[in-house]
């Protein structure tokens, strides 16, 4: 009987010890870090690092990488292209202007007004020039501190529904 009591006391002490050592232990989480804000990141001067052209059909079919994409950065004078986005004060709209001394094909109007808008779950960028307006996707959402910007220009059919067949990924770094 005495032995049973000793075992019970030891077991209870063990449980209490476990509670002290585990339940009160401070759990350390990694830092959340800077939040992603495409509208804040967009503002500023950007230098074009690369432009990659994609064949959506080849991507859809899972063809080899060399059939899916082509780096056309060196084919035209993209290494001299830069763009500046200036916030008009709303945080989601303003003006933009490309600098393109080598006359590299940009596919969008060289300057005009920009605005951000929601398209379902994703945010898109509207570039409205004097004679041309385009809707651009963000190729990737970067933080301001990443100093990077990725814009995607899509070329699509509109036969009832939108079917993209070519897209261009513009990869910028902050100037």
């Amino acid at each position, binding site marked *: 009987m005495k032995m049973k009591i000793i075992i019970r006391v030891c077991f209870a002490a063990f449980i209490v010890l476990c509670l002290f050592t585990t339940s009160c232990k401070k759990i350390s989480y990694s830092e959340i870090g800077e939040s992603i804000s495409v509208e804040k990141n967009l503002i500023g001067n950007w230098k074009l690092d690369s432009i990659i052209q994609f064949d959506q059909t*080849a*991507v859809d*079919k*899972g063809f080899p990488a060399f059939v899916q994409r082509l780096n056309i950065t060196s*084919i035209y004078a993209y290494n001299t292209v830069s763009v500046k986005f200036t916030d008009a004060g709303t945080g989601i709209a303003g003006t933009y202007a490309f600098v393109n001394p080598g006359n590299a094909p940009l*596919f969008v109007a060289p300057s005009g007004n920009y605005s951000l808008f929601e398209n379902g779950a994703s945010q898109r960028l509207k570039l409205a020039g004097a004679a041309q307006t385009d809707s651009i996707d963000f190729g990737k959402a970067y933080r301001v501190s990443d100093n990077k910007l990725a814009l995607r220009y899509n070329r699509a059919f509109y036969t009832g529904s939108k079917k993209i*067949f*070519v897209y261009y990924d513009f990869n910028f770094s902050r100037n």
Partner: protein
Amino acid sequence: MKKILLLITILVASLNSFSQVSASVSPSSFTAEDQITITFDLTGNSLGSSNEDVYIWGFVPGCCGSPLNDQNGFGFGNSNPLAKCTRIGTTNKFTFTLTPTIYMSKTAAQIGAQFGCLAKNQNGSKQTSDLIFAVDPLTFTPSVFRPFPSKFTQDDAVTFFMDKNLLNPSKVALNAASEVYVFTDIDYIKPDGTGGYFQVSQYCEPLNTGDGNYYPGQTTTADNPALKAKDFGNGLFGWTIIPSKFFRIGDQGSNKFPPAGSKITKIKVHFRTRLSPYCPGTVGDSGSLGDNFGFPVLQ
């Protein structure tokens, strides 16, 4: 004892509602873009017996189900009539024909290597086990000439590639050439609906300049850098243009240029050696010209 009997009854009932069946697909080897017919053999199963309708429930393992499964208010407990299988005669065998990319509303790359389905009754109280079929990958077939991208508009950057590794051995000079040039021509439709033709080539080809040809900035037979293909290495040469700009649509500098609003319907690109076989005074070589090939341009 009663409890044991009840347990056995539940076990038998659950086995019956989750039938093991055989299924086949025709053709047995297929890609995600091929039309296939799946045959469910439910012989000996209660599913499908007594004229019960049978429905397909398709999915990509590890990904997602077909929109046909549960869109428009339908679901596992209320099958879509469009998913109804066809009974073979008076047997308890059923077929369903589909093309995976269309049926799943996914690309071949998204579907990957497997397609799965099961057969069920309308309210989902009876079903087969999952049936998984292997999906063959789509294969890219290399060719001597190909455009990148495969579909483009006249305002896109397009690169016309020639792979010398696949070039006909009879093209001796072109095979041996370290520098490759092109000449090119287009068919186009003017805004008034009439057709047009326009060629851009070396100055020397042909000498008659009254036929719509254009020799960009050339007054001699010197090389035209605008017509030089880039050496991408390993025998691959590519020539990149933005068609509407290169063919000067709307440029009023010459009446040879297509008028504003013209739409290119076809581009032909001809690869050749540095020295044209048609230039007077240069070495003609029947092996220097690449095959002609034309690409329709999306409107």
